[in-house]
């Protein structure tokens, strides 16, 4: 019963909400980090508790008038004053806060990504009870002392691979008494990449036809191939510390097995499968290969990542899998 009611209410409110959000975006424009909240972009409305509070105060006013009760008037006025004061405090609690960074790490579809908002309180008073909301997903509340910087994590569940576009983020506070809610909309261009969900029971990687050679020659008889720019995820053992000391540039040493022992993870080997299924299997293979310490390359239509190893390489492969459009070209 209540669900039907809320559904029909949603149906009524949804277009209104959409238009409102468009208006807000048009009014504020796009945001560039860092964003400092000025009162122009703060919105404030009473919460249901606040509305009840107002009704209760009004009822008490009528009661006090009826009984001509001085202390009743005192209580009523105290409550009314509290409401007015908390309106200002609520508004000021969000004003002048600054958002310095918004970032999120990629995750596998089905997992939750964490969108981290870095907030800084540049004012001399503390800020309390600040939460962020993306869609229907709400963060926990944090408090910020004067001059404090903190991150506000919002857990965001993911369903599909590819980019998740975050249209807008709502930053809000109910401080001090949750009678009112002050909020602001952040329109910062934020994308989170979602990797395909790895398949649970993939066909054996070794059995795949793209396997060119056996697994020998890893480790000992690798020969130094050259230096390349350091990438996050490279093993510290690979960092050319001597070169670093000389040039201040962080470099990674690259090795090439004399007996080039690499495997290829090739989309063409799974051409008979549906695309998502194939990508899931390949994702699993990438993870397995990385775990096993193999050197692996990835071939997708239009993309070829030469065999390598390491977290950066793995992420590169996963990114490619996340963004793969089709597997058609394989046959060409």
């Amino acid at each position, binding site marked *: 019963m209540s669900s039907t009611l809320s559904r029909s209410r949603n149906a009524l409110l949804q277009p209104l909400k959409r238009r409102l959000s468009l208006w807000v975006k048009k009014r504020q424009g796009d945001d560039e980090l860092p964003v400092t909240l000025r009162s122009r972009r703060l919105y404030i409305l009473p919460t249901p508790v606040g509305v*009840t509070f107002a009704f209760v105060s009004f009822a008490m006013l009528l*009661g006090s008038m*009826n009984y*001509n009760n001085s202390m009743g008037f005192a*209580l009523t006025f*105290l409550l*009314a*004053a509290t409401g007015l004061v908390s309106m200002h405090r609520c508004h000021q609690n969000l004003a002048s806060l600054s958002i310095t960074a918004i970032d999120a790490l990629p995750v596998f579809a089905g997992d939750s990504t964490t969108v981290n908002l870095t907030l800084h309180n540049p*004012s001399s008073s503390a800020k309390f009870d600040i939460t962020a909301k993306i869609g229907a997903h709400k963060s926990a509340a944090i408090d910020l002392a004067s001059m404090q910087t903190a991150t506000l994590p919002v857990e965001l569940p993911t369903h599909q691979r590819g980019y998740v576009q975050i249209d807008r983020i709502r930053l809000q506070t109910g401080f*001090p008494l949750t009678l009112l809610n002050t909020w602001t909309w952040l329109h910062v261009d934020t994308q989170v990449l979602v990797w395909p969900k790895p398949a649970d029971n993939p066909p054996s990687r070794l059995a795949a036809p793209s396997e060119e050679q056996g697994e020998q020659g890893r480790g000992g008889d690798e020969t130094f191939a050259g230096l390349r720019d350091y990438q996050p995820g490279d093993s510290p053992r690979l960092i050319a510390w001597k070169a670093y000391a000389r040039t201040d540039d962080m470099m990674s040493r690259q090795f090439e097995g004399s007996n080039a022992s690499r495997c290829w993870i090739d989309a063409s080997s799974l051409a008979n499968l549906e695309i998502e299924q194939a990508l899931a299997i390949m994702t699993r293979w990438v993870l397995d290969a990385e775990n096993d310490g193999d050197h692996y390359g990835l071939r997708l239509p239009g993309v070829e990542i030469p065999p390598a190893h390491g977290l950066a390489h793995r992420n590169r492969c996963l990114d490619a899998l996340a963004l793969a459009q089709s597997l058609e070209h394989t046959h060409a």
Partner: protein
Amino acid sequence: MRSDGSLRITLGWTISAMLFAYAPQIATKPFWVTVLMLGCALVRWLGEVRRTPLTPAWIRTPIGLVCFLAILQTYGSINGVGPGSTLLCVMAALKLLETRSKRDLFVILFICLFLILATFLTEQHLWSLVYLVCSYGLTMAAWMAVSRQGSHLTQRWYVAQARKTLMFATPLFLAMWILFPRVPGPFWAIPNKANSANTGLSSTMSPGDISQLSESQAVAFRVRFQGLPPSQRQLYWRAIVMEHFDGRSWSANKPSFNRNPANPISRRGEIVTYKITAEPTQRRWLYALDMPVAWSDEGSVGIYPSPQQTLQRRQPVDELFEYEVTSALQYVVGRELSRNSRTHYTTLPPQGNEQAREFARQLLQRTGSAQAMADELLRMFNQQQFFYTLSPPPLGRNSVDDFLFSTRSGFCEHYASAFAFLMRAAGIPTRVIAGYQGGTQNPLGDFWTVRQSDAHAWTEIWLPERGWVRVDPTAAVAPERIEKNLDSALRQFGERGSATFALPLVERLKLTWDMANARWDEWVLGFGSESQSDFMQWLGLDDPDWRDLTALLAIALVCLMTSFSVWLWYRNLPPRGDAAQRLYRQLQRRLGLPATTGETPLHYAERASAAFPDDAHRIRQITHDYLYWRYAGQHHRRRRVAGILRKVRWRFRSRRARQRAHARGTARSNRR
């Protein structure tokens, strides 16, 4: 169910707020309500601590039903303040049992607010200010705790926030208190407070009634005299005139409201004007000194004189009532008495008290006149073995006979009753007056307080040519009662009064408390539309009405809220760095010599001393102190830095002086 421990703190605050809000009503509510409140609080609290499930609905529902029936049983209805607030208590207690979400907790806190209001509807004495502040603070702390449920804030934080909320709200509250137009109610129901127990006079008087009253220290009314107050023995505050006697009790007529009383008072000699603030009695009569000749007649509640020279209102006095009266201390009233009235004022029950009747007849024969008979009776009370006591022996069916001829001890009502009976038995028109006699002057506040213990009864007899004349038989038995007060009168008869404090300090404290209460009544409880128009006139607005008040209130609120938001904005500015650094920068500004990037204070000091050799010592001293202040946390050096800096500032107060000093320094170093 939530039981992650975060609810426990919130629940603790909510339960405390609820019980505190309820506390003043323990005495007036049925006992089972208190038991229910405490029981539910305990059950819920233990349930939360032990993490047991909530009380199921099949237990809660019957309890609620039983409570509802119990309320109906106790009060007879659910309308009115008493049953309404009891219902609220029950709702809060039962709601507590099923509390798990924020919403439930807020519901309880809203009920708390209503409970506070309900308390004020029955009690508004001075202590209720303390109650208001504490219960409001506690509720707001609980409110804060519920709002921030699950956060790891300390208890002290909630208290601090509640204090802040109160502090910020106070200016707005005061503006609303003073300027919100007080429209006199009531709008819907005339508040029915008749059932609330009030001590005070009643319209009938039986032996023992007033002596019972005299044990109460409750305030009946307060008086402020214009000019010199009359002497204590003249302070007869008449309230009720009793004309009927049924053999045991005296009772008053039904009040009649007539603008022009039958018996006008012609005054002789001095008059006295005074203002009375009467405590609520739920009765119609008012108090006035013998005899009222003029009274304030403003506002919606008119004051009406009765044919018996008392003052009364059409509506019961259900709240503090202030009025002004002028009385004539010497007067002639009712010189003409119609035959009907004469019969009316000499009527006695046909039978009973035969001995007294006989005695009265004989006495009149012996003395000859009404005046002489009254004097003889008073002499008898004074010289024979009559006793003045708070606890007289009980009287039988012929109460006057018993009193006059066997027990011979009683309180003022015994003497007044017996005297009036004897006079009537002798055919002399007589009536009994109930009211108060005397009062205590409070030297701190220059007002008089009349308490229930000052309750008194006396008589008036009608004499040809002189009209109604006051005769107080008690004055004959115990003159101290009239000259001083009840206590000294009782002490003379070997009885200790109720007020046993004789210490000057305690006496002084009592007077101070009394004065604080009087001020409270006057300024807070008595604050209404009249005080508001006085205030507006003081501001210079003539003939103000509620529109002016509203406009002024709006202006005041806007001003206050703007200044509050400016203050908040100021507090939102970035901090200005630490004080030490600020003072050190000031030095650089004063010298007109900014420090270069990366220059240490010591390096700067060397450079600055070279540039300003006259001040080299000061500059080094400041730098030294600054470093100790900044890096060793020696905050006491702040004052020294500021002191030296002031001297530096003085020397270089103008740009020219600075340049001159600089030039001198350069010249000197060149010479060197």
